[in-house]
C-alpha cells in the first residue's frame, strides 16, 4: 500500500476546516477552564468546609475519571434535565470542565508561591479581601504559572479528538468521515497525526519561549 498523494491533497482542505473547529473548541474550552479553575481554587481555599471540601472532592473526581465518559454524561444526561446543547457546545463544556480541574491545581501552586509577607502587607494596608486578591495576590500568582497553563492548553488541544465520539465535526471526525467515504484511512488519519504533531511542537516551543521570558520552569503534564 502506498500513499496516494492526490487523495492526501484533496483531503487537506476539508481537514483544515475540521482543524478550525478543533481550534475553536480548544480556545472556548480553555477560556472556560481558566475561569472555572479559578472558581475551584478559591472555593478550596474557603474557610467554610461545606464549600472547600466539596470543591476539593469535585476537582479530584474530575481529574480521576475519563474525559470520554464525562462527555457521554453531559451529552446523554443533560437533555433529560431539559438542557439541550449542540454537540459542539457539549464538547466545549466537557473539555472546559475537565481541564478546569487541572488549571485549578496550577492556580493553587501559583498562589502558594506568593510569599506570606504579601498577605500580611495587604492586611497591614487594610485592603478588603477582593482587593487583596485582585491587586496583590493574583497579579503575582498568575504570571509564573502561565507556561504550565500553556502545557494544559496543548494537552486539551490533543484531547479534542475525543469529541468525535459525539460527532462534533472536529478534525478527527472529519477524517473519519473522509475515510468512510473513500475507503482510504491512510491519508486522512496520517494527515491528522501530522497536523497535531506540527501544531503541538510549535505550541511547545512557544511554552518554552514563555518559560525563558518569565524565568520559570514548568513540568509538562
Amino acid at each position, binding site marked *: *500500500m502506498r500513499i496516494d498523494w492526490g487523495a492526501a491533497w484533496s483531503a487537506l482542505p476539508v481537514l483544515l476546516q475540521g482543524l478550525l473547529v478543533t481550534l475553536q473548541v480548544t480556545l472556548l474550552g480553555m477560556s472556560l477552564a481558566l475561569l472555572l479553575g479559578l472558581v475551584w481554587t478559591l472555593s478550596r481555599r474557603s474557610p467554610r468546609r461545606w464549600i472547600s471540601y466539596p470543591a476539593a472532592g469535585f476537582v479530584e*473526581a474530575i*481529574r*480521576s*475519571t*475519563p*474525559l*470520554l*465518559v*464525562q462527555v*457521554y*454524561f453531559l451529552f*446523554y*444526561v443533560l437533555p*433529560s*434535565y431539559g438542557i439541550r446543547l449542540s454537540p459542539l457546545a457539549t464538547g466545549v463544556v466537557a473539555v472546559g470542565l475537565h481541564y478546569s480541574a487541572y488549571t485549578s491545581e496550577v492556580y493553587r501552586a501559583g498562589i502558594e508561591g506568593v510569599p506570606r509577607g504579601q498577605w500580611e502587607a495587604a492586611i497591614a494596608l487594610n485592603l478588603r479581601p477582593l482587593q487583596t486578591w485582585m491587586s496583590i495576590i493574583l497579579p503575582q500568582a498568575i504570571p509564573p504559572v502561565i507556561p504550565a497553563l500553556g502545557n494544559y492548553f496543548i494537552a486539551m488541544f*490533543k*484531547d479534542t*479528538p*475525543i469529541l*468525535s*465520539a459525539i460527532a462534533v465535526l472536529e478534525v*478527527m471526525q472529519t477524517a*473519519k468521515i473522509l*475515510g468512510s467515504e473513500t475507503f*482510504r*484511512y*491512510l491519508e486522512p*488519519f*496520517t494527515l*491528522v*497525526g501530522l497536523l*497535531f*504533531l506540527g501544531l*503541538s*511542537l510549535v505550541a*511547545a516551543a512557544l511554552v518554552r519561549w514563555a518559560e525563558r521570558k518569565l524565568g520559570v520552569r514548568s*513540568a*509538562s503534564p
Partner: protein
Amino acid sequence: MSGVTIDLELLPPLFKGLTVTIQIFSGAAGVAVVAALGGGLGRLSGRCWIRAPATCYIEVFRGTSALVQLYWVFYVLPFFGIEIGAMAAGILVLGLNAGSYGAEIVRGSILAVPRGQIEAAIALNLTPFQRMWRIVLPQAAAAMIPPATNTLIELLKNTSLVSLITIADLTFQGQIIRASTLKSAEVFLLLLALYLALSMVIRTFMRRIEKRYSLSWRPVGGLT
C-alpha cells in the same frame, strides 16, 4: 426526572467491562514501564543513533494524542498489511503513549541526581553501567514515583478510548446498557464511580510502593 436509582441488573455486564479495562490497563502499564525506561535512557545516551530514535518516539507520541494514535494503528496499519487486533493495538498504543510521558519523567529524574553522586561512583571506579544501575537509578526511582502515579492515572483514563475501536471495556459496556435501558444518568454515574475507585486504588498502591521503597533512606520532606 425522579431520583437516581441504581439497578442491580446493570452490574454483571459492567463488571465484565471492568475486567477488560483492568486487563488493558495492566498490559499497557507494563509496556509503558519498559518504553519509559528505554526512551528515557535512550534520550540521555551519548550515541546519536540511540538518542535520535528515542527522541523521535517521545516527541511523536507526546505530540499527537492517544485517540489519533489508536485510530491510526487500528485503521491505517492494516493498509500496510499489519493486522494486530484491537486488543493488542489498544495495549500497545496506550502503553507507548504513557511510556512517552514516562520517558520524560525518567530522564528528568536521572538528570536531577546530583552530579557528585556520579563523580563519587567514578572515583570508586564503577563501570558506566554500574553507575547507572547501582547509584543513579535507585535514587532517581524515588523521584519518579509521584509523577509516574499521575501518568498511570492518565493511562487509566485513556483506556476508555479503546471503546471507540470496538473493544468491550467498561465504557463500551456502559454505552450498550445506556442504549438498551436509556438510564443514562445511572449508568454514567456508576461508570464514573468505578473509574474513580480504580484511580484511588492506583494512588494507594503507588503511595505504598513509595513508602516501602524510600522510607528508610529518605528523610521526611525529601533529600536536601
